[in-house]
């Protein structure tokens, strides 16, 4: 006759505690890894987003990777297609504005507004690089006084929707 054997099971409370500890440990490991990922990535890749005037006025910004926005002066655009180098100037626009199109226009009409030379190397010339476009550049102002951009973002022209009524509509019909 087979003998029945019985083994006392582990204390259920103890087992529960050990499982909880496993889950908590796994959670802490995940949380710490995620925090490390975010903090280290941010410290390495963070760039200040500033205006042209701020870049030019503060020597502390020289050589630092920055993000800067300005109005593109269309006449200054020069593209060397052999070397794939784009050169142009951007003009200071204030960091706060109500109407972007107006801010860009005002900036380019102001002869005294601070302006900065830009160089972008090994790049195709973007279609949106036009007069009165807003350029958002990532790069650094080097010792040669030129901002060497590694990233160039241009605002889509649909942003330049008229907030004021268009000119030319105002002529009254003859019968009125």
């Amino acid at each position: 006759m087979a003998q029945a054997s019985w083994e006392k099971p582990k204390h259920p409370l103890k087992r529960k505690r050990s499982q909880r500890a496993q889950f908590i440990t796994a959670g802490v490991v995940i949380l710490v890894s995620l925090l490390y990922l975010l903090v280290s990535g941010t410290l390495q890749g963070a760039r200040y987003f500033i205006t042209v005037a701020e870049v030019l006025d503060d020597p502390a910004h020289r050589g630092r990777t920055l993000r800067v926005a300005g109005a593109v002066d269309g006449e200054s655009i020069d593209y060397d297609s052999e070397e794939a180098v784009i050169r142009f100037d951007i003009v200071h626009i204030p960091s706060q504005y109500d109407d972007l199109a107006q801010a860009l226009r005002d900036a380019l009409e102001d002869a005294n507004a601070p302006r900065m030379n830009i160089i972008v190397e090994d790049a195709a010339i973007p279609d949106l690089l036009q007069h009165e476009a807003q350029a958002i550049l990532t790069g650094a102002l080097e010792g040669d006084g030129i901002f060497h951009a590694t990233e160039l973002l241009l605002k889509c022209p649909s942003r330049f929707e008229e907030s004021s009524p268009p000119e030319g509509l105002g002529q009254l019909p003859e019968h009125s």
Partner: protein
Amino acid sequence: MLAELGLVALTLALAGALYAIVACLYSARTGEQRLLQSGRNAALLTCPALLLATGALVVALLTEQYQLRYVYQVTDPGTPPLYRFTALWGAQRGSLLFWSLLMSGFICGAIALNWRGERRLMPVCIPVMMASLAFFLGLSLFIENPFERWWILIDAPVEEQVVSRALIPPRAVPPTEANLRAGAEGMNPLLRHFGMVIHPPMLYLGFVGFTIPFAFAVAALASGDLSNSWIRATRRWTLIAWLFLSLGLILGGRWAYDVLGWGGYWGWDPVENAAFLPWLVGTAFIHSVMIQEKRGMLKLWNMLLVIAAFSAVMFGTFATRSGVIDSVHSFARSEVGFPMLAFWAAMTLLALSLLAWRWRGGALRDERQFASLLSRESLFVLNNVIFIALFVAIFWGSFGLPIASELFLSKEVTIGAQTFEFYVVPLFIAMYMLMGVAPLAAWGGMTVARLGGMLRIPLLLTALGVAGLAVGGTDLLVAALGYGVVMFAAIVALCEIARGVAARRQTLGEGPLRALLALFGRNQRRYGGYMVHLGVTVIGIGVIGSTIFQTEAQHTLNRGETVVIQDYALRYEDFVRAQAVDGRLMNIASLVLLRHGDEVARIRPRIDDYPQLPMSIAGAHSTLENDFYVLLIRGDRQRATFRIYINPLVNLVWWGGLLLILGTAIAAYPKGRR
């Protein structure tokens, strides 16, 4: 006449939505069913009313009614009919109306299909859906009215004479037809692409679709009916919204690839990221909802995910439409920003408050506890953690860091694409590994040895695949490992499908194809899910190939000259200028692509001259192996400069997307009564 018709229909839709809110909420209090039915009917009325309003705007666009400010802004006499139609969603005013139409379509579908099954949730569900719709209708009527017309005020000073108003102002006349036609601004050239026909509607469908699960979740919380019934009702709606959102994201990538001319498809732009965020939360929900259905767990978490998905949609809409975010995709700065932010905050707070109330009352207590780390439910939770980590990282980089730095440092700090890649690559690796392991784990728990046994064959096949890649010439260890991780997930999905087919063949004696079809038909969710996993792995292979091995070069060629790039030769043949039917001038270069001396394609990149700006249209030779992608930079008949990209495996991104959509459609397809 069209403007009046549109205005009346829009007002009627808003009135219907408001009445539905009041009637249904009153019936929730009193239990009066006739009032609930009346509210439902008013909600259903919004759809035909919005169809009428949208129809009026479409007719105005097609028939060149330039007195309408919107028509004047987005079209001109040279705009082809197809783009006249797509102009409906080409700028803020029209796209808000279109958004409302899609939302109301989704809502009417949800009411019609769930009226019988989920009737007890309807007294709250309908008001939540209608509140969302009414909010967008309010924006359309009071802030961004698509039916505003240009008027000249006869008695006003010259500089204030031209105004745009929805209603006819006193002592006003319309501008002359000739002036209107001459001044019409026309569509942004970037939007004149086939992608414009389909990408925004799909994205909008994905966005507005998340309103339905949110409304059901809030209704369940408010009514206290927190059984799995609301989960069943919303799961399919979530899948449908997720399907459209996925399609919108894939098509957006394709559009960027074709139109923006940088040889890439994802730039970590804030607006792109804003559309990706609800997708991540939706993906997490699609997985975790299975645990609630099967095990009665994660009730609180699922509620949170549904609320977060809707909240992410609203935040993304705010980010895109307010114009406060710097992006190539965003709309112009608009007055809708503050109301949208307020609506987003109000809806999110309302839902979270209800959630907290129910949670404190113990109504969201799980029926089981996690028994083992090595169980399917634990691994699904880990999968959720990864999706939420991706959400946090991308939200932090796109919005959190710029906002926090502005608040605490008075300076905006941003991060670039490289940092986003630093964040997401380890998380995607973890996601792919889990995609391989989790489907093999058992509910409740299993031993390491048993799981190891199940993983043996997929791991062996993966190792063979990686070795094959190494022999085949993939000399980059990172790429080989990347392919390995992605392949592992694909092999597990394929093995599971093969196992199912084999089991049917053995037990039922079916042929392989019949067994495969029956497998997908009998268990749509499971095998549709595997197909989605396969799609994601194919996308992963495409992303690794096109990112790590992309070749980029720029060459200036004389006519007849050839340049050699890898094992291709590219010869500049000709250059022509031609005029398109819409009047734009096209500068077309003609090149011959040779491989091993044989002509494989003729490539014609071009630059289209629009009045607003030139548009570069890439020429490409596409195969499954790679895309030979050429941009014309400038040129004439004698000499031209080209930017050349070889993007290996990039087409797998689109093919993988197609598999993903197909798999989701299978999983979401309603099962007939058997």
